[in-house]
Each structure stands twice: as C-alpha cells, then as structure tokens.
C-alpha cells in the first residue's frame, strides 16, 4: 500500500515507538517536540512541548498513559499521553540518550552521554506516581563504559539491563547490584559503533544494528550470537517483526556524505531479511536520507520508518507480504 507520509517534524527523526495496542505512534526528532499520531491514518493527535533540545528516545507505558522522553537538553520528562501535560522532569548533568520502561512500568532505565568531563552513565529511576512525588534520586547509577551508550533496555524479569553503544560492545548488567554480568564475545560482535537495539516481541532475543554495516541477533540471557545480517551500508535502525520471522534494517550512507553522491548510492531503503535464514527478502524505498528509526506495529501488519530527511513513513503491508515464501 502507499505509505502515509507524516510531515510533522522539521529536523531528522531519531526514534519511533508504537504503544502496546498499536493504535498510537510516537515520534521523536532533533526538533524539540515529540509527536503522537494515529497509526492507521497518520493523523496527528498532538505534540509534547517542553524540551529544549533534540529528543533522542521515548517509551510508553503498557497502559498508554505515560510517555517518557530523553533529550539533549539534559532532561528526561514524563508526560501524560492523553493531555500532553508534563508530569515530571528529571534533570541530569549531561544529555539523555536512551530511555526504557521496565516490566510493570515502575522503573525506567536512562542513559546519559559523556559530557563536560562526566563519563557516560546508566541510571535506574523509580517512575511510579508515588515515587515521583517523593524524590527523583537515581536508584542506581552504572558507569565505566567508554563513549556514548546509544541504547539500554531491560532484560527478562527486570533482572538485567542490556546496553550497547559507541564502543561496539553489548553488555549485560545486574539491575539490582549494577555489576557487569557479561560482555559479548568480541570475535562475534560488532566492530564499529552500535547505533540501535531492539527486542523481539516476547523479549527472548534482540537485534543490534551497527555502523560496521551489519545487524546481529542475540539471545537476551546468554548473549550468544544467533544470526548476522549483512546490510552493505551503515545500519542506524533495526526492528523485529512480532508475527513473522522477519527483521527490518534501515540506515544508509552517512548523513554528512549524502549530498556528495547520487541518491541511489546511499541505500536509503528499509531492507527486510528472513530472521532465521538471514536472506534478504525485499526492500522498501522512499526516504531520501538515511533511515534513523524503525518500528514494527505490534500487530505485525505494518511498520514505520523515520529518516534523516525529517519524514515519517507509515507502511501498511500489502496482501502479498503475508504470502512471501522464502
């Protein structure tokens, strides 16, 4: 089907997130205002005004009531999804890069960038309504990673935190003690900046995308490398289909070089791979800049992509997609 083109952002997209029911799509961009859209028709419902810097990441609670956003203005804000009112704001000494709600939505993991001599850090915060009233102290702070931590997500039963970033290493931390449990095998791992990380619907495995032009699939408990997808371009965004054995990978030539060559050289397609066989299935063209964000609709019938070009494209799959035989 023809994609729906969302023209709500003035700057490159950074992140996309569907709510659990798949009816709402949240988009973050380098302009300061996250948007929320109806995913079926692309109608904009509203914006969340208050950040004063690029918004890097967001997450939404299971009941779709609260939205958490991390921004380069050194704050992480919690919003009321329905009214767009800011509920709380955590202030940090450095830009916030990634946010993720834990199962049960009482905790959130937040990463901050290295900034003005301060190292990058992973923070765990209580985010249930009572705790927010009392204090906004971090429950735990994990430091010791070199470079930016581009993504941090919760592991099974909120027992672990998985982080990945500029040092090309994936790490599993104990969420209780803050101790490092595991690092990925450097032989199997990425060789360049890991730009994105996305969990499967059941949380059993996750996919990482890297500037080394590959995407890799990992087991969330053992950190064993399951699959590798050769993408032939730097990968900025990855997502796993919740219904089929498909993964989608997006990225492209670095944004700083785009203007110096032909559009076709950039490879700004969202490419589908068979998750198990690692074979390319197809691609969706359309963006005229690298793809920075990808998200699957939880019902598996569509996905959206956000690009450096400032557009969000909502795709609903054609009937053919459901008949793909590999």
């Amino acid at each position: 089907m023809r994609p729906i083109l969302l023209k709500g952002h003035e700057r490159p997209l950074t992140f996309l997130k569907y709510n659990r029911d798949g009816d709402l799509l949240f988009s973050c961009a380098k302009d300061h205002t996250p948007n929320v859209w109806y995913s079926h028709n692309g109608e904009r419902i509203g914006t969340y005004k208050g950040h004063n810097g690029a918004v890097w990441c967001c997450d939404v609670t299971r009941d779709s009531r609260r939205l958490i956003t991390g921004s380069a203005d050194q704050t992480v804000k919690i919003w009321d999804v329905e009214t767009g009112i800011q509920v709380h704001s955590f202030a940090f000494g450095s830009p916030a890069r990634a946010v993720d709600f834990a199962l049960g939505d009482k905790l959130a993991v937040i990463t901050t960038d290295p900034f003005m001599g301060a190292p990058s850090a992973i923070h765990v915060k209580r985010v249930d309504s009572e705790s927010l009233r009392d204090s906004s102290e971090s429950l735990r702070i994990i430091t010791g990673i070199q470079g930016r931590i581009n993504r941090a997500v919760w592991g099974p039963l909120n027992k672990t935190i998985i982080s990945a970033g500029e040092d090309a290493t994936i790490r599993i931390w104990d969420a209780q003690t803050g101790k490092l449990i595991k690092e990925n095998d450097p032989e199997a791992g990425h060789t360049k900046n890991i730009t994105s990380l996305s969990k499967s619907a059941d949380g059993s495995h996750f996919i990482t995308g890297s500037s080394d032009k590959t995407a890799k699939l990992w087991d969330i408990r053992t950190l064993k490398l399951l699959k590798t997808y050769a993408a032939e371009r730097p990968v900025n965004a990855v997502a796993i289909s919740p219904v089929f054995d498909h993964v989608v990978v997006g990225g492209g030539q670095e944004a700083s070089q785009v203007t110096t060559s032909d559009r076709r050289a950039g490879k700004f397609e969202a490419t589908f791979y068979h998750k198990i066989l690692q074979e390319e299935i197809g691609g969706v063209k359309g963006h005229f800049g690298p793809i920075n964000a990808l998200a699957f609709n939880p019902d598996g019938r569509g996905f959206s992509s956000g690009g450096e070009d400032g557009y969000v494209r909502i795709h609903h799959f054609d009937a053919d997609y459901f008949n793909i035989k590999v």
Partner: protein
Amino acid sequence: MAQVVGLPQAPHILAEELPSEDRVQLNIDFSKVNLDEIVLPPGEDFGIKSDDEEEEEEVSEFDSGFGNVIVVDRLPVVAPEKYEKLESVIRKIFGQMGTIREHGLFMPVDPETQKTKGYAFIEYNSPEEAQTARDQADNYKLDKAHIFAVNMFDDFDKYMKVPDQYTAPEVKAYTPGENLLTWLTDEKGRDQFVIRFGSDTEVYWNERLGKPEPVYHRAFWTESFVQWSPLGTYLATIHRQGAAVWGGSNTFNRIMRYIHPQVRLIDFSPSEKFLVTYSSHEPSNPRDTQKVVLNVFDVRTGKVLREFKGSADDYATGGVGGVSGVSWPVFRWAGGKDDKYFARIGKNAISVYETETMGLLDKKSVKVDNVIDFSWSPTDSILACFVPEGNGGNQPARVSLVQIPSREELRQKNLFSVSDCKMYWQSNGDYLAVKVDRYTKTKKSTYTGFELFRIKERDIPIEVLELENKNEKIIAFAWEPKGHRFAIIHGDGPKPDISFYSMKSPHNVGRVTKLTTLKGKQANALYWSPIGRYIVLAGLKSFNGQLEFYNVDELESMASAEHFMATDVDWDPTGRFVATSITAVHQMDSGFNMWSFNGKLLYRIPRERFFQFLWRPRPPSLLSPEKEEEIAKNLKKYSKKYEIDDAESSQLLSAADMENRRKLQDEWKAYVAEWKRLQEEERLLRRELCDGEASDEEEELEAEEVEIEEILNIEEEPVSFGFEQLD
C-alpha cells in the same frame, strides 16, 4: 701469514627463509594484545631475518679488517742495497691505483739471505681501492721475468680453506617441478580470477551455478598489486625487495623471485619469457630529475638479462599515462609467439632491442625524426610510428609502418593539419585504425577521422572513414577481437551514439560499411567479448554504471542492466561471463557483480576496500581453426555433457540448500521451545511485577487470537488467507 688465521670473521648472516605462511596464520586476536607488555627481542632486526640480507652476504666479508690489503707476488728478489729502489718502483705503480696508507707497504726480507722474499703487502685506504688495484695490477708486466700476481689478502684465507681432497659435489636427485598448467585441465572447464581487498588477496574458481569456489587466500600477499602473466601461468606480486611469481592451480607456491629494490611497475613479455621491472628513485640532489632503473629478467631463471639506468627524462618521451614522468610500459613488446624484439621510444629514434643478445638490433636505433608515438602489431614484428607536423607546418605529419628487422618501410601516409593521432591494432594484426584529430580551417577546433590500414592485403591499402557528422567527439573506439568489426562511441553530451562498422561489405570485400547506429546510449566505454560477437556498452563512473549487453551478429540488445557506480568491466577469457566491479575505495558498496554474457546477474560479492579484480588469462587454444569450427557446428553434441552436469549440480545445490534451511529452522524451533519453557517458569514472577494485573502476555495473546477470528467474519479475506499460507 700465520698471525692472521685466527682473526674474527664477519658474522655471516644466512637468511633462512621464513615460511611466509607462518606470518599469516598466527591467529592473533589483536584486541587482546596489550602493546605495552610486548618486549621486543634485542638487536636491530629484533631477531627477524630480512630477505634482503641474503644479498649482502658477500659485501660483509670486508669487515674482517684486511679487505683493503692486497698481496703482490712474483716480485723480483733483490738484495738489501736494491731494496729501496724496488720499494719506490712498487709505490709508484700501486700509488696510481689508490692511496697507500702510511706504513702500508711491507716487503718481507729473508733473515738468512737478507734478500727480499719476492712478495709484498700493500694496504690501501679503502677496500674499493684495493679491489681496483687487484684488478688492474694483476698480470702487470714489470719486465719479461716478472709478471705480477696480485690477490686480495682475504682471498688467501678463502683459498686456504679449500680442502686438498676433491670431493665430488652431491648430485641432487631431480625433483620434477609442479605442473603449472593443471588449472587448465579443470574438469568443469571453469576459469579462475583473483581479487584483492583490504589486505587480503583471494583466488576463486568461477562457478557456472552458485557462488564461486574459493581456491586460495592469503593476507599481505603483495605490497601494492597483483598481476597475472599474459598466458595465466604466473601470478606476480610486488614487494619492497622485488617482484615474485607464484603458480599452480590451487597451491600458489612461489616459483621465482626477481630482486629489484623498490620496484614499482612490472610488465611481462607476451609469451611470458621475460619480465621488465621498473623503479624510480629520488635523486640525492633535489634539482636533478628522478633516477629510474629498469631490469629485464628471464622469467624462468630469475636472472637479470639487462639493466637500464638513467634519469626519468630519458624514458619519458612519448606516450601518455604511467607514473611520475615515464609512460608505462617503457618497453613495448613485438607481437608474435617468440618474444623476439622489444622497443622503446627515444629522441628522434626508436630503440629496438633483440632478446637473443639483449642488445640494440644491428647496434643502432631506428632513426625517425620527431617521433612521438609508436606501437607494435600484436602478431607481427611491424612497427607503426607517428610523427607530428614539423617545421612550422611545412612538413606533413606522418604515420608509417616499418618492418623489423629489415627496417623496410612498408607503408606511409602523410596527413595534414593534424593535432593528434591514436593507433588501434586489431587483435590479429589484420587491421590498424589510426584516429586522426585535425584542425578545422580556423584552427580553433578539431574534428576526427579514421585511416584504416589493411595490413594483410597486398600493398596495404588505406581507407579513410569519416563520421556523418565529423564535428562529433569520439569517446571510445574498439576493434572486435579476432574479427573484422569495430565500434565507436561518438557524440557530445550525456547521451552519445554508438556505431558499428565492418571492414567487409556484402558486395565488395575491400570496403568498410556501417552496420548500424544506436542513438542516445548512456555509454562511455566499449567492452567486446574476447571471442567477438557480443559487446558490453558500459556507462562507467559519471554515467552511473549503465550496462547494455549487445549482440552484434543480430544487431539486437540482449539485456540492459545497471551496476550502480561500476568502475570496471572484465570479460572472462572464454567470453562466457562478465564481471563488473566497483574499485574506488571511498565508494559505498565496493565489490563486484558477475553476469552471464547475455546480461543475467549471477551473483554479487560485496567487499570492503575492494581494489582489484583480474581474470586468469588463458593461453591461446591449441585447436586449429577448422577444428574449432567443427566443434561449433556440433555444439549440441558436446554441450549435452555439460547440461547434464549443470542439472546435477544445480539439483545437488538445491538439495543442500533445502537441507541447510531445514536445519536452521529446526535450530530456531528448538531455541524458541527452550525459551517458552523458561518463560513458563517465570510466569508468576512476571505477573507480580505487573501488580498482579491479569494481563500476562501469554493469556492476552490467546485473547487476541479470538479477536482475529472475529475479524475473519468481517471479510478480511486476503489477510487471513495470508496467515494460513504462511503456517
């Protein structure tokens, strides 16, 4: 003499060859290496012996301290009163050849007879002087009875060591070398190619079906590039110390090394008997031009047959391209099977060398005033040279054909108002096309025409071909290999035209005819199949990699395709496959694509930092033209075998593929089952985390399934159909 025997000898460093495989297969994980902990072995070379030191072996003998001492024997035996006279004579003779050190002349005297013993030691300032003195004064006639015998002092030591007893040298049993042509006897008739990317070099068999089969892989095989010899026997690699050649079908053992420090470029003779290596060296005085060194090696023995040294200017005349001043190849080889002549262009002359003597043919160059370009016929020893207009336009420009070794001018053509000339030989040497750029009357612009020579016909007739619109720019010209046709890309702007011509016409054999013109093609390069008939019209680089596969027999296009940003097109030597590659380093997706001759994409191999793709050339077929024709006629009969092979291997391939897929799927299923089991164990814990809300994922998923059934009733047919299909 006895006192010198025990002197320390210079350390003889015998560079044992490190088997170079060891270097590559160390399997070091560099991420685990802490550089600070590494302690280097003592010594300047860290205990690693370099290949170079082998060559320095003899030089180091001078270090023993007596290298500048010579021994002069067969002097007259004189009484003490004549001692001084003799000494002054010797000093006079040997002082001419170098500076004798203070107290450097010593004539022993017999204590009993008080006469000299008839020999003397002379010490020079340097070993070089001693060497010259030895060479010059040996056999010097002082008078009839006294002919000097001069030797290096160190040589005595050496000759003393020669055992008195003759022991016959051990005769090594003859071990047959590897058959270097086994790759030609591949059962499936496949071709090999080499690729170079990053620091790796790999050789593959090109498969008719499926991906290519790896043959050989080696990291850091070469320091700049690799090159096949013209008949495909050897693969040459370039190193700091020189070039090396490797061969075989899959072993790639080193066959020979050619010592030439800092070698930059190499060139094989057409029958790969000789190898020319080139290096340029910065001069000590920055105002001087660069020094160049060229060596001609015998490929099989590795011996230097001739060395050329000079300043870059001497080798820079004529031609275009190449590196730092000289045009490569400096020496161009005459056609034919026996590599008989090679030539280079000089000022007002072409120097033709004979490989038999490695000297100038008839001891003098072929004199051609103001010559700026020449080329050999690919099959005969015929030179074509071009001389531009001279004498302010009073002397016409000239293209002449000269037979070697007779130096007879076979044909000559005068041309007027010429700005430039380019010569194109047909691969059999049947035809020569000369592209002539001429000034228009105003001298402000140029237009192009062709002079076509029919070499093999009597008197070499010349025909002039001009395009319909002669102001059009000629972008490319290419002869059909072994054929009588040629193609020209002409026109200005982004969509030039392509014309095909034949040297034959249906009615008149001796006339060139136009076959067709294709209008508005995105092409800037022509690549004929090595067997002729097919041609790839390619739009490389700025034309974004447009490819058109064209059949010239039928004058129809077989396929159009695109390999975006392709920089190179290479036909395999049999004309069955075409490889297109992207070799520029900064490009996004470097690597290569393989196509069938008719434009079907077979496979793609992306490689980071891709530098080179080279097909292994094949020697010419041993079949006679009649036999070849017969095979072509009965192709059906012969092809049957290969068709069966293909069918079998494709079946095998798909079976293996299916098996592999099933295995992967099974593995995944096991993985998911294991996960589900663990997930089940944690179900309660998870519910607790969600405040005991009755929304455990599994249960809700079941509920969703019910919903889907409802949707089914509301006629969402295609989607639900899809789900069924997929399971």
